[in-house]
């Protein structure tokens, strides 16, 4: 699964037994490592390492379970303070270490004898044939492991995904995000490199096309022009009223507003006339104000005529022309 079978053999570590000197050589004060030939044929003491891994995983799982059970009433953590379990574990580990050391010593002493005996007793071709068969079965076993690993990979990946999803669902991502230093991440980002990979001109053209800048400019320009024109007209209307007030004050009139409203809503006759009417046909005025007597026209309506309804434009009865 991890590809260790394709790598060289692991180096003995940890509680590997002390390598003894071959027989016949003078003993030395310090133990020296065995030659490569003896290391290659000697059984590698991986048992202590595997034992540590198993014990570490089991201890981690036990601690996780203990932490999960912290909130349970009556639970009491005993892993670190239990005397007998720790003593039994230490005794087992020491026994394992001594057993492995004894096995290694026995192997060192008996291996040369067994080799010579095998060469003397067995036919000359058997070791080579056995080595070839072993290589054959080893290669087949390696291929089977690889195939099994490939077949198990999707299932393992699916399992990992489901486990990861479950873990993520249980996580408070907001709390995780709060712990993330965004500024530190931003400082590591090369903005220039990002910008060089972005086609800003193309994006700008797309944005301008979507916004329809031409229409906005047209609408804005027309609206500004209309509002400016209205403002100018309003100023002129104020000026008109100012002149009117000054004139009324000079002439000592009572009212200051212009009177008359002789032409209310002076829209062309073609606008008000019905569709079937001739364009030049006289149409009724839109407001009743023109029906009122004109100051410099002969009085056509009776003095006691009922008042007409109020028009849209505030009318005022026209008065005779001032001298």
């Amino acid at each position, binding site marked *: 699964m991890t590809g260790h079978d394709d790598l060289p053999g692991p180096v003995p570590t940890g509680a590997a037994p002390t390598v003894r000197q071959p027989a016949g050589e003078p003993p030395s004060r310090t133990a020296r490592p065995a030659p490569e030939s003896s290391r290659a044929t000697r059984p590698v003491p991986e048992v202590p390492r595997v034992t540590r891994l198993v014990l570490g995983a089991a201890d981690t799982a036990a601690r996780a379970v203990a932490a999960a059970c912290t909130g349970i009433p009556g639970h009491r953590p005993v892993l670190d303070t239990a005397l007998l379990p720790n003593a039994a574990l230490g005794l087992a580990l020491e026994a394992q270490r001594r057993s492995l050391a004894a096995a290694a010593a026995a192997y060192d002493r008996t291996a040369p004898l067994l080799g010579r005996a095998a060469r003397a007793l067995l036919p000359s071709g058997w070791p080579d044939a056995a080595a070839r068969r072993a290589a054959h079965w080893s290669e087949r076993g390696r291929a089977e492991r690889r195939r099994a690993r490939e077949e198990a990979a999707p299932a393992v990946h699916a399992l990992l995904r489901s486990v990861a999803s479950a873990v993520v669902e249980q996580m408070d991502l907001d709390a995780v995000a709060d712990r993330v230093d965004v500024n530190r991440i931003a400082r590591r980002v090369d903005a220039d490199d990002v910008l060089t990979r972005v086609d800003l001109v193309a994006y700008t053209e797309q944005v301008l096309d979507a916004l329809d800048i031409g229409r906005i400019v047209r609408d804005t320009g027309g609206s500004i022009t209309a509002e400016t024109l209205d403002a100018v007209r309003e100023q002129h209307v104020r000026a008109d*009223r100012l002149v009117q007030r000054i004139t009324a004050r000079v002439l000592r009139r009572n009212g200051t507003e212009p009177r008359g409203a002789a032409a209310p809503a002076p829209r062309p006759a073609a606008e008000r006339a019905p569709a079937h009417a001739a364009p030049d046909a006289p149409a009724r005025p839109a407001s009743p104000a023109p029906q009122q007597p004109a100051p410099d026209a002969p009085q056509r309506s009776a003095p006691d005529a009922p008042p007409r309804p109020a028009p849209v434009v505030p009318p005022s009865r026209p008065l005779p022309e001032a001298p």
Partner: protein
Amino acid sequence: MTPPVRGGGASPPFRAPGPSVQGLPAGLVSRTTAAVLDAGVLFAAALTAHFAYAAGRYLLLGPPFAMPDPAAWLTFSTAGTLAVGYLAGSWVTGGRTAGNQVMGLRVTSRSGHRLTLATAVVRAVLCVVFPVGLLWIPVSRRSASVQDVVVDSAVAHDWYGRTRPPVRPRAAGRDGGARS
């Protein structure tokens, strides 16, 4: 300023409805400004005619390129005819000249009808011959000039005319012509 509306290119920009002075008689300042604008239009037209005459003469007869120098009577008569035609034609056809269009004014009879050709010509002649008749506007109770008194016409505010938009609720913060 009218905010841009996405996808609303077909609809015209929103404008407030007509001002409260709609239909009221125009005063001295507005009508004088309109008259000045009309005088500018006439001056530009006369200048264009001069250049056109000079260009045509240059193309047909060759150099020199010189502006025409007609006699005084011809100048005045041509200018007067041009002015009378411009004013009368504008009042008869659209009810307003270019200056009236800018100032939002409309010239009608006192009954609200469009001027007839004869009335428009007489009024135009009076405007050209006696422009100071506008000074009678502040004195008149109905803001009528001498020309209005003579031909029984009126000049009233009509800011939007045919382009008057349909009445809609006014935009917040915009008072438009209601202030006046």
